[in-house]
């Protein structure tokens, strides 16, 4: 897959992905808009710049492995897969429908190319990423494992079991990213269950912590590159994002965590996306 370094081009792709996230969710009538829009710039950078992958050969042995622990942001994951060439973006409109390959949370058995792991029960993906990274190291594989997590997800104890084991096994082929948007279904993380000090927590668990603005393409790419180059152990990127990014009227509103736009909202949302580009 050719790497796109032109930031304007990446921004355009992000806009198209966001539009499809809005449209597919409106068509589905349910799903998670907030986190999907919040992670769009990160997914764009991953699928069009960072990941070593071949969309026409989804099982290519040398591909980097992306483990999406927060399966509920499937709409942005699917849109990134489609726009990078894994399948026709038209199929995005089948999201969450009976018989669709685009399950509400990623489900491999339905045959969509590009899914490494069926997931969606929070707190499991980092463990899987750890096992996969260990298998890769065992065979001296060149690929890296990239996992994506929510900040609310860090309240799951299993995440910290996995974090402990990643540094114990010195997994320098593992890069986790935390979607740090400070909110979850019930409200602010700090009201629901405080997770700070996150940087200290991960550092004390033996991780290298990198911070970045999760909507700044250049910064996202530079941070990922720095993470890949770090060879002393696992790296976690705290990417500061805004839930609902791009649709100003819903940005940072946690009520939009698990909501889909109504069909009559689509035009207005897309207009906002275009204005906010």
């Amino acid at each position: 897959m050719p790497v796109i370094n032109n930031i304007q081009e990446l921004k355009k792709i992000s806009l198209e992905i966001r539009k499809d996230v809005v449209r597919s969710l409106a068509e589905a009538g349910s799903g998670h808009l907030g986190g999907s829009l919040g992670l769009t710039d990160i997914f764009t950078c991953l699928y069009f710049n960072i990941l070593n992958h071949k969309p026409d050969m989804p099982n290519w042995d040398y591909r980097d492995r992306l483990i999406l622990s927060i399966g509920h942001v499937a709409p942005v994951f699917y849109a990134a897969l489609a726009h990078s060439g894994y399948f026709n973006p038209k199929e995005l409109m089948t999201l969450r429908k009976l018989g669709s390959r685009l399950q509400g949370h990623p489900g491999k058995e339905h045959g969509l190319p590009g899914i490494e792991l069926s997931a969606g029960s929070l707190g499991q993906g980092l463990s899987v990423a750890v096992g996969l990274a260990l298998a890769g190291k065992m065979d001296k594989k060149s690929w890296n494992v990239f996992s994506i997590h929510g900040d609310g997800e860090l309240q799951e104890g299993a995440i910290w079991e996995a974090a402990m084991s990643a540094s114990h096994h010195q997994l320098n082929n593992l890069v986790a990213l935390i979607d740090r948007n400070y909110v979850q279904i019930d409200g602010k993380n700090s009201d629901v269950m405080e997770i700070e000090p996150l940087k200290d927590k991960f550092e004390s668990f033996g991780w290298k912590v990198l911070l970045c603005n999760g909507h700044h393409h250049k910064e996202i790419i530079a941070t990922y590159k720095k993470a890949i180059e770090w060879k002393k152990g696992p790296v976690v990127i705290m990417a500061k994002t805004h839930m609902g990014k791009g649709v100003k009227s819903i940005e940072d509103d946690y009520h939009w965590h698990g909501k889909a736009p109504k069909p009559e909202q689509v035009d207005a949302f897309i207009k906002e996306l275009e204005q906010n580009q």
Partner: protein
Amino acid sequence: MFTLKQLKPTRYGFGEGLKALGEKYPNVVALGADITSSVSVNFFKEAFPNRFFSFGIAEQNIMGAAAGFALGGKIPFATTYAVFSALRATDQVRISICYNNLPVKIGGAHAGISVGPDGATHQALEDIAIMRVLPNMTVLSPCDATQTKLATIASVEQVNGPAYIRFGREAVPDFTTEDFPFEVGKGQLLKEGKDVTIIATGHLVWEALQAAYQLEKQNIDVRVINIHTIKPIDEDIIIKAAKETGLIVTAEEHQIYGGLGSAVAEVLVKENPVKVKMIGMNDQFGESGKPEELMQKYGLTSGHIAEIVIEINKQKRNNERPD
């Protein structure tokens, strides 16, 4: 007639099977949960130190990491006490392993009440129920140490997806031989009989056989079937037994709800309903005690099984007698 070769813990059979797999398949790896020796993973660990990975006391992470190993082309064995592998980490087993249909092999050690003095917290009596309800999961519950070795090997050679292998801590009669073929999903007719059938699993297969031999003296002709694969269950052998003997007794070191007895009853209500008497833990927790004391107290011995068979057989004869 099966005879006692020796007393041997089934966990040793697991350890030997795992080591044999390690020799044959370079992609077999083992994950440790701190209790490596206790669950016999040390045989593998010592032979293949580079293919053993320590995860400490963190069962949820072990199951998830095992799924990751499988994604990376390995055949991982994740082994700990059955109370933890089946219960602590059930969601990881359900989603990361079973929903992804990955070839993770899960060892459920120290199963049953025969764990003894550790008491209720460590006596896995619900693991069969949990594991057999998960789609894609194969559930193996071999009858002695020799068969546990064969079952462990079969979990890799005969099962493509996830498998759960249940075994115990205590030394129990080892009575089968390695040339006694182990076929996943096939029940084993260990003794012919026409009056009553005892269908047993795990260590209670031996107890069932002893009950059957005792009852020969009382002219009760008892059939004994070993169901070493709880899922997929051998429906044919169960239906045939029901048709030919008319009465079924099930025996297991597990709660009567959800275990072998339930699995057998599910088959029979569809095809050939007959009376099923279930021997197991009667919806209760265990307690501390010597293994043999507990087996006695909770009615899991050959003597108790024989009593149940006599009683149920008497009812059958009374019903058959014309008024």
